[in-house]
């Protein structure tokens, strides 16, 4: 894509995101008309407390849910973009370093111990960061091999261990009370997201996002590989560590509020790259806007296609798995 042509894509995606958000606020078990939506938003905006059912639904249920969808989708997509570039592999995703599995283990442990919600989120966050740190330590210890390969394999091994620990906790958990909660959380959902959780996760997401924006050009160069990046004047090891820490922080913070939602971090970066090319300066905002719209819309499906709420992680897998196969089938240029 030519320089400058990307300038049209980003505003268009921003409009799509706004339309998706409005759709998500009005569609549901309690339908809200566009007129009703506009007047409720106008009243809430002016600082009035929620009085009509429309206003209460928007303020307490759908509003937080839509914002959570935006936050989670944008974070997972940007982490995916970063991991794919840094590992020079277009088929990796935030799960690659065991972040999701580690965060999952933390949360499951919290549910198993019947801790309050805040503590469950805290444990998810700690679990995610601990897994990545462990993987990083392993990679440092195994010297003299391809560092990226060691990092990826370390992620697979640590992720598998976390998966085994999760299975153990599921066996031990109370089958009537805890097990359904654990299962639901592992499948991912925005159903129980409330305002307080969002304000908890938002700062961590922003702290993770800032280095990615500041180092955008350097992240491009890192995708050429360490030696080439160093010969171009970049302290490759240091920049990579900062960027991985930032992407992991974003992933762990949103997994803490939404549970494990797979595939978003794999599929969205690909589609974004097909549209605007691999240049991180355009790729990051494109992937964030697309990830946000995608998750908001899939969440509408999750709560409206069946009488019960379908966990959103199931839907993202149903969309993502065939897409992944299609990528493989298209071959080497499939992700370009």
């Amino acid at each position, binding site marked *: *894509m030519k320089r400058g042509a990307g300038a049209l894509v980003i505003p268009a995606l921003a409009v799509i995101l706004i339309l998706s958000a409005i759709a998500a606020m009005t569609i549901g078990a309690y339908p809200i008309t566009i007129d009703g939506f506009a007047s409720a938003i106008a009243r809430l905006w002016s600082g009035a407390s929620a009085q009509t059912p429309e206003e209460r639904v928007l303020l307490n249920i759908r509003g937080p849910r839509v914002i959570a969808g935006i936050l989670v989708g944008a974070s997972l997509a940007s982490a995916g973009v970063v991991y794919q570039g840094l590992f020079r592999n277009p088929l990796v995703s935030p799960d690659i370093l065991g972040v999701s599995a580690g965060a999952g283990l933390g949360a499951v442990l919290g549910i198993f111990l019947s801790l309050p919600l805040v503590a469950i989120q805290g444990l998810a966050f700690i679990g995610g960061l601990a897994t990545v740190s462990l993987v990083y330590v392993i990679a440092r210890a195994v010297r003299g091999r391809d560092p990226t390969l060691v990092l990826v394999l370390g992620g697979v091994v640590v992720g598998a261990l976390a998966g085994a620990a999760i299975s153990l906790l599921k066996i031990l958990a109370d089958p009537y009370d805890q097990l359904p909660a654990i299962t639901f959380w592992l499948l991912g959902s925005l159903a129980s997201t409330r305002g307080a959780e969002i304000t908890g996760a938002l700062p961590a997401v922003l702290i993770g996002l800032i280095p990615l924006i500041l180092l955008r*050009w350097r992240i491009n160069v890192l995708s*050429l590989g360490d030696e080439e990046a*160093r010969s*171009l*004047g*970049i302290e490759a090891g240091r920049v990579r560590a900062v960027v991985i820490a930032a992407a992991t922080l974003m992933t762990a913070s949103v997994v803490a509020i939404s549970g494990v939602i797979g595939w978003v971090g794999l599929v969205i970066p690909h589609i974004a*790259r097909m549209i605007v090319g*691999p240049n991180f300066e355009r790729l990051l905002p494109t992937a964030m806007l697309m990830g946000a719209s995608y998750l908001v819309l899939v969440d509408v499906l999750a709560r409206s296609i069946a009488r019960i709420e379908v966990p959103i992680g199931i839907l993202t897998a149903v969309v993502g798995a065939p897409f992944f196969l299609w990528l493989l089938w298209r071959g080497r240029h499939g992700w*370009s």
Partner: protein
Amino acid sequence: MMRIEAEALAFGYPEHPVGRDASLSIGAGEVLCLLGPNGCGKTTLFRTLLGLLPPQGGRVLLSGEDIRQLSRAETARRMAYVPQAQAAIFPYTALDLVLMGRIAHRGMFAGPTKDDIAISHQALADLGIAALAERDVTRLSGGQRQLVIVARALAQAAPLIVMDEPTASLDFGNQVRVLSEVRRLADRGIAIVLSTHDPDHAFAVATSVALMSEGRIIDCGIPNEVLTAESLRRVYGVDVSVEVLADGRSICSPRW
């Protein structure tokens, strides 16, 4: 004045030394061609010269300063690297790839400026590939991609360019094209170090040749003196004849 010097350089890894006693010196407008059989340590020597591997002894000087004292960005402003041709992973445009040569000239958190874009277009134009600017590098031929990487080294504006087998895996026409660019760069006053497998390439572009064998530089000097039938047989173990053409150039051909 730009000059790269290796002083009694020992290179390799602590537990696996590759070579030692390498001393070289190349200045503006000179082309040093490094020649030697597979596994003789050329690539390891290159990586040490580039500061990608720490020397196991001796030192590398860039304009008189030890490369270990220089930051990555400082080194990149003095020395550009053209790695061996390899398949591109991500479909950057040629311009995006050339722009990456400018990163050592900008701050930690900067993006490319208008100047950087102009310099990159100029570098592509200098190599006669301005038309490739917006093309996807994964869809370029090997020769075109190699020229794009040379353009990146130009955009990097370093007075010294190190090329690791710039003609490897290129067809005949592209080899000639890349080598003639090497000559033009040297005419512009850029110092060049390159490795090759073909003695004729050294005859064509080099002002001096370093012949390597088993981790040692066994001879270094002007091509016609270093590359003789005798020395090539000693290093490569094959019979060749070196003939001087009517125009004074030498060529090398195997004796069947």
